[in-house]
């Protein structure tokens, strides 16, 4: 166990190193000259050269990368070209809103996804099952921005139940969470269904039924703990979907998180911010996968770590 955790941590550290390298190469490839962008249009050649010197842009490739890595390790993601603020400060200020939105989305997708999956598995082959599975297909095929605008149109503009956008109270959280969780709910319901169908076929479930336990008790006490395992591993992958999704959802709802920060940076081609958000997201995904790997054996003692 300890050996596995150590190996997994080393692997994670290597992947994080790789991520920093890929991000650096992408930054390196950007055609715009950061020194010129920082100096402004009216700067003299000398000023630009001074800034280049300061930023270390004249150094050889590997030295630039080492400097970049060293500053990353100190939590320095560089400065925004246009806002003249530290990228790490901007991201730190926006992160809580995004985390809140993701928590809301996880709640939505677990509630909808698991409920749909369980009902479909229990009523396997029925019209209810078919209808639920078509719904889940729509969930994974629907573009998030269209779902977001549709929910806004129906529930905010026409019915007036929720505010059109903004941030602060629980009612502001509902529509963005549902939009972000819609895709995941589709995946969860399909996984829950096939996993539960597999478990319900097993002998121990039949035995439990034969001892005279009620259907509900067999389902929730005996079948579900096993059926839910693949879902736990999914949450790691989920974080990746969320990190893409928040850019769209936050721009539709005007939610002040890192997705909106990235979206505004796209409009102004503010590369350091886009790279910072990408870096933070990639780290979140790697750590999410690590967490899922480490948590699974705690829930399921049959899984041996090697």
């Amino acid at each position, binding site marked *: 166990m300890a050996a596995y955790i150590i190996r997994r941590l080393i692997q994670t550290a*290597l*992947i994080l190193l*790789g*991520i920093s390298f*890929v991000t650096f190469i*992408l930054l390196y*490839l*950007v*055609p715009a000259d950061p020194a010129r962008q920082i100096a402004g249009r009216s700067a003299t050649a000398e000023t630009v050269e001074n800034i280049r010197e300061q930023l270390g842009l004249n150094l050889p490739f590997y030295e630039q990368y080492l400097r970049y890595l060293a500053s990353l390790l100190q939590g320095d993601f560089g400065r925004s070209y246009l806002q003249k603020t530290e990228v790490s400060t901007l991201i730190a200020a926006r992160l809580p809103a995004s985390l809140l939105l993701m928590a809301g989305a996880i709640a939505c997708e677990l509630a909808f996804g698991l409920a749909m999956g369980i009902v479909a598995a229990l009523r396997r082959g029925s019209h209810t099952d078919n209808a639920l599975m*078509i719904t889940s*297909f*729509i969930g*994974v*095929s*629907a*573009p*998030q*921005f*269209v779902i977001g*605008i*549709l929910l*806004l*149109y129906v529930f905010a*503009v026409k019915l007036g139940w929720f505010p059109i956008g903004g941030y602060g109270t629980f009612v502001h959280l509902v529509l963005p969470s549902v939009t972000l969780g819609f895709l995941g709910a589709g995946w969860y319901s399909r996984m829950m269904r*096939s996993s539960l*169908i*597999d478990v319900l076929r097993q002998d121990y479930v039949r035995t439990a039924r034969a001892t005279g336990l009620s259907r509900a008790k067999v389902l929730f006490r005996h079948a579900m703990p096993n059926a839910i395992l693949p879902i736990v591993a999914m949450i790691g992958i989920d974080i*990746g*979907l969320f*990190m*893409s*999704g928040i*850019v*769209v959802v936050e*721009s539709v709802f005007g939610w002040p998180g890192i997705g909106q920060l*990235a*979206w505004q940076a*796209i*409009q102004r*081609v503010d*590369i350091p911010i*886009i*790279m910072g*958000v*990408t870096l933070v*997201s*990639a780290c979140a*995904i*790697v750590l999410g996968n690590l967490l899922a790997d480490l948590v699974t054996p705690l829930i399921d003692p049959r899984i041996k770590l090697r």
Partner: protein
Amino acid sequence: MSRTVAETRASAANPSVIARLLRRPLALAGLIVICVTVLAAVFAPWLVPFDPYEQFFEGLTIEGAPLPPNAQFWFGTDLVGRDLFSRLVYGARTSLVIGVVANGIAVIIGSLIGITAGYFRGWTDTVLMRFTDLMMAFPALLLAIVLAAIFTPSLWIVAMVIAMVNWVQIARVVYTEARSLSERDFVMAERAMGAGAGRILFRHILPHLLSTIIVWATLGIATTVLLEATLSFLGIGVQPPTPSWGNIIFENQTYFTSAPWLVFIPGAAILALALAFNLVGDALRDILDPTQQGRH
């Protein structure tokens, strides 16, 4: 899984796969949507009632607002008075070209990397698959955004960007299967007879992987269509005035409260096409992959 090469070849080209596909109502519905979209894209110039780029004077109300769907403009007009139906039909070209080109490149890259890593093992495996893991850690949309910000977006650049993001998943799937195939006796036998790596890979291992690749290629088009629409919606995909379903929404979204058709009609088109490819891909997986049978 224990099929011979001949059997796999037969099942990949077998008319009965298509016949079995047509017997599933959902897959049939998906195929119809795909066919309609392909026909619309191919015959766009003959189908559309108006020039998709022309801004009609009578396409706007006196106040300058877009027209809702009516007898002259079937799906209404957009903010500058262009015919939405015509733009939508031309937009099908964008979606399909990107769907097929981007996904085609992604499938080729992913299959090559997966099959090479799975067969050669050793350091080739380590380097290629660790690189794949690394690319998996990047959220697809954000990586595409960064790439689109680096290169100035055009139709082909968008296709390349999507391909560079989407090959990862197919590489993983192909790798897992190629690895187990390389351990099999028939591959050993080939090797013992002195067959070269190229011959084994392309004549013996690849045919076994065809059904997997077909399934993932179909599902991948759905992902590609959605990613293109999302990039265009964010304004960094296909650039206006070239119509794409995503950028029609991008151009008109600020007025969705007063002109909802400008968002929801293209939105429905994106959903229908992505859903169609997902339904067909899922049915193909059921039909081609015997290990999945009985689970649905």
